[in-house]
């Protein structure tokens, strides 16, 4: 019998996180700091709207691009947060999570052989999406000494005549790094001069703990060449609702909508109704959750300093990315040992790119009590490593 699987899929590397997931799942009593989603439940008033829409029998398809009301709310939100106006009829597309939007953007923008610059460490799906769209990923290994912020000279070095697209994953999973307006300004000149397009994945935009998050779309000349991706998962603790969106110039958005129409039809209707409520009345919830995350972030950074675990201070998302290279183990060995000896699950930095070697991702989407228990175990683990019996 011939191999049923396509070569392209066979050659696609499986996600590095999968392997570790299987190990952790064997250990039922482990404490995990390995989760990439909020610990809060979706605020009740938002859930209630979802339930109400079901009660009212709103179980139909919506238009391909999503409910008009929701697209209008999204357009208002982007305008009020970034001062950029998108036409809700032509420039906004509701997707199944930010993930779908990433996939669509890659497929809409890439021709075979086009190069896609992906800064790493970063979320696991950019490269597979680029590859499946026929693109050729070009990885930039970000440096801890730059707080994992993309540097202009790093970008310049990665650009070739074939470069079509840059993925900008900030605030960043897994490092928690952010890009500030200053950083963005230095990048936009290069982007425009080289006629590159940008996929800006800003799913963590509401979880920024320094100044207010600034999007690259708000800088001159960038709206025209950017696919802005955001969603409800992180800001409103709505991961399971699977709802995100893309805003892009109409020529790009219409092509993404075409693809979306053929493979998805429309994003889940219940989630769309809930999301309208989130945007209209959820700002207070977001602020409250952001403050809670920020408290935990400060707490973790303080505890790391106390136990001598090196970590740059991250200002975004809900991750910290401490450096463990001094303990003479690879990230994966470190995580496996920690899991075996102390039953704490972290994610090896290498799950997010080779340059994540020497780092581990710790999520603080957990209660302070939970964090304390886990940190105590990590402290014991580090002490035993430093002073072996």
């Amino acid at each position, binding site marked *: 019998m011939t191999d049923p699987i396509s070569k392209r899929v066979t050659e696609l590397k499986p996600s590095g996180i999968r392997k570790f997931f299987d190990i952790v799942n064997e250990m039922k009593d482990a404490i995990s700091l*390995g989760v990439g989603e909020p610990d809060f439940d979706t605020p009740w008033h938002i859930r209630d709207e979802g339930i109400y829409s079901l009660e009212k029998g709103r179980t139909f398809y919506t238009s391909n691009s999503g409910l008009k009301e929701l697209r209008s709310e999204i357009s208002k939100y982007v305008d009020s947060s970034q001062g950029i106006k998108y036409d809700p009829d032509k420039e906004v597309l509701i997707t199944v999570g930010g993930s779908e939007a990433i996939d669509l953007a890659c497929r809409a923008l890439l021709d075979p052989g086009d190069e896609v610059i992906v800064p790493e460490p970063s979320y696991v799906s950019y490269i597979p999406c680029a590859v499946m769209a026929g693109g050729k990923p070009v990885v930039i290994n970000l440096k801890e000494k730059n707080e994992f912020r993309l540097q202009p000279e790093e970008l310049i070095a990665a650009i070739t005549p074939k470069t079509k697209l840059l993925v900008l994953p900030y605030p960043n999973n897994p490092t928690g790094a952010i890009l500030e307006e200053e950083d963005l300004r230095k990048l936009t000149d290069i982007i425009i001069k080289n006629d590159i397009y940008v996929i800006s994945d800003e799913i963590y935009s509401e979880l920024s703990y320094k100044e207010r998050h600034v999007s690259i779309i708000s800088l001159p000349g960038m709206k025209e060449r950017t696919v802005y991706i955001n969603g409800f998962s992180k800001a409103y603790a709505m991961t399971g609702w699977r709802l995100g969106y893309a805003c892009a110039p109409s020529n790009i958005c219409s092509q993404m909508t075409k693809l979306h129409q053929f493979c998805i039809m429309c994003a889940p209707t219940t989630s769309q109704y809930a999301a309208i409520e989130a945007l209209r009345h959820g700002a207070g919830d977001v602020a409250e959750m952001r403050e809670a995350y920020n408290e935990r972030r400060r707490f973790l950074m303080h505890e790391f300093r106390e136990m001598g675990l090196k970590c740059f201070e991250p200002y975004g998302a809900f991750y910290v990315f401490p450096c463990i290279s001094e303990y003479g183990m690879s990230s994966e060995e470190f995580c496996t040992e920690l899991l075996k000896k102390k039953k704490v699950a972290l994610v090896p930095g290498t799950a997010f790119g080779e340059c994540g070697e020497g780092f581990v991702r710790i999520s603080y989407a957990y209660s302070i009590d939970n964090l304390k228990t886990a940190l105590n175990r990590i402290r014991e683990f580090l002490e035993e490593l430093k002073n072996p019996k």
Partner: protein
Amino acid sequence: MDKNESRIRILKAIEHEARVDISELAVRLGMEQTEILNEMNEMEKEGIICGYLTLVDWDKTDEQTVTALIEVRCTPQRGQGFDVVAERIYKFAEVNSVYLISGGFDLLITIEGRTLKEISRFVTEKLSAQEAVLSCATHFILRRYKDHGTILAKKYEDERQLISP
């Protein structure tokens, strides 16, 4: 951060976590420990912080307690409104809280006793006997689902996958 803002942040934090370790709180809020202690002292003196309470679910103990909400209609007094009658009521030790409210009645009282009998004795002998009190409606609390912003009925369980990207 101005004084007002830091005060609000402290209050919001300790309102639900009265027993939080102050050095830990300082780290979490990004403030100095002495600043928090000073502000708390000042706010205690100014009567902004009126006490530090413990939220108890008595139903889970062997102790017998009964709580009732009582709606009271009463006649306001010339020049003093409801203040005098409210004071006469809140001075009873068994009275937990007294609120002046809008709507169909005037005062809402919560009262705690050991038995039904104790509460009914209070209502008939003490409360109704007040000259200004016109009528009372007593509601006994049967079950406490949520109190002071805390859900008592159910414990939070983390059902997320252990690892996700």
